[in-house]
């Protein structure tokens, strides 16, 4: 997943980097095909070049040798809301066919089965980033017909489109899963567009909580080569926190 996510990043993209796997994908992209990737962390580090894989988005290694460190008001107002962020990265506990994401509760909000961490900056990243990448492992429990709670809005929220809701960002462009990749069609619905080698479309559909449609031209994803795997395992995530 980290490898496939990294492939979505282009050199010189300005990326709003979240904790965990997105961070790993960005570091991989920077170490391979996108050395000019510009990483902004919601903690305030701008143009960071961390020497170690940061465990938290507020790791001190993000500060040392970054291009700028600013308050969070500047990050959210002058970078995100101002429209400077090209790529946002989100994961979550649930996603639906419109790319709505839930990171708040499983069950009823007032009386939840599981209390999750909440939005953090996710809601505004979903609203403002020009391209949004969603990275999540796939199962019927996580890819759901309807999210228990919409923390971060996708292409249609409670029946309304992004345009109707006045969202400046472009919305989700892809969902990168452990089985394949979902793209979004013109109506904003996620469709299966790419499978990993050895995975069948049926397997993907079986792991999806809604009747997943398949794109006309189904792609097969490339496998990471040995050097990339070694980079991930030995250098970027030696503790195997996200692999």
């Amino acid at each position, binding site marked *: 997943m980290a490898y496939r996510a990294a492939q979505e990043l282009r050199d010189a993209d300005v990326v709003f980097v979240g904790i965990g796997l997105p961070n790993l994908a960005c570091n991989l992209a920077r170490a391979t095909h996108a050395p000019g990737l510009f990483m902004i962390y919601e903690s305030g580090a701008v143009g960071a070049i961390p020497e170690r894989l940061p*465990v*938290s988005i507020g790791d*001190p290694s993000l500060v040392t040798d970054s291009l700028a460190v600013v308050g969070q008001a500047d990050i959210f107002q002058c970078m995100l809301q101002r429209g400077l962020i090209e790529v946002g990265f989100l994961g979550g506990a649930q996603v639906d066919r419109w790319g709505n994401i839930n990171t708040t509760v499983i069950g009823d*909000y007032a009386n939840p089965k599981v209390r999750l*961490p909440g939005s953090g900056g996710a809601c505004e990243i979903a609203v*403002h980033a020009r391209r949004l990448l969603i990275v999540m492992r796939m199962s019927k429990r996580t890819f759901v017909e309807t999210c228990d709670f*919409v923390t971060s*809005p996708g292409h249609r929220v409670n029946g309304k489109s992004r345009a109707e809701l006045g969202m400046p960002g472009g919305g989700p462009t892809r969902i990168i899963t452990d089985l394949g990749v979902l793209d979004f069609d013109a109506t904003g619905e996620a469709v299966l567009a790419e499978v990993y080698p050895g995975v069948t479309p049926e397997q993907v559909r079986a792991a999806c909580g809604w009747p997943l449609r398949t794109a006309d031209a189904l792609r097969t994803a490339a496998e990471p080569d040995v050097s990339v795997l070694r980079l991930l395992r030995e250098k970027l995530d030696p503790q195997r926190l996200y692999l």
Partner: protein
Amino acid sequence: MNKLCSMKEAIAASVTDGCSLVIDGFTHLICFAAGHEIIRQGRRNLTAIRLTPDLVYDQLIEAGAVRKLVFSWAGNPGVGSLHALRRRSEASSPERLELEEYSHFGLLSRLLAGSAGLPFWPLNNYAGGDIARVNPSIKTVTCPFTGQELAAVPALRPDVAIIHCQRADAEGNAQVWGLLGSQKEVAFAAKKVVVVAEEIVSTERIRKDPNRTLVPGIIVSHVVHEPWGCHPSFVQGFHDRDNDFYVKWEDISRQPETYRAWLEEFVHGVKDRQGYLARLETGLLDKLRAKARVCEGVDYGY
């Protein structure tokens, strides 16, 4: 005016039962020492406010100090959950914690309004998701020029803010570098500010680099000298984050029994921060101490 005092005195004088409180810091500069002292003094019914309530907030919750949490992301960053918070907020919980939640930008906007002396702050926006639906404090405002509908949140004026910094003088002029989080906004929004510093320096030394001053002493009421007061969080230029502790915390905090035992040993069982530090594994502080990366100074001459 010399505002130096001990953590015990600062907490006793500023944090009262039922007050609203921010112990600020975004992963950086989180003053665990202040939280532990609040637990020791047995404060109750606090409204605890922070974008990222973390371990020390969870400890305040477990210790029974908190009635209500105002927040935007509650977890053990990079590791897992806040288990006291989960126990007090999931369906099976007997004594439910009151939660008021925003996204980061939303809660930050409340603090921006408070710090700027405005009754509300506009932001773009909550876009039809469920956060605004379940939180009646998120309303809308219409731009008088474009007619665009924006989100609006009300000013937040916490009773007390506790701000940890690298250095301060005895008047509370506090200098910070590295991650700034929302420390400035929190300090200006609060009615009372406690500054906690790794190092107390002369006013003369503060004046040598005035652009580094994040919080001016005129809004500060107490100054505490508490080196290592942020462990297991970090202080740029002083010590690293104790990542191992954050990882271990997941196990310690998952069961109420081990959680309580930890509080007993490291909070109730010690008199002050010195006592806490003395109980840490030998050699840990040396291991966490920062390797120097001193930048050059700049010229303020004319």
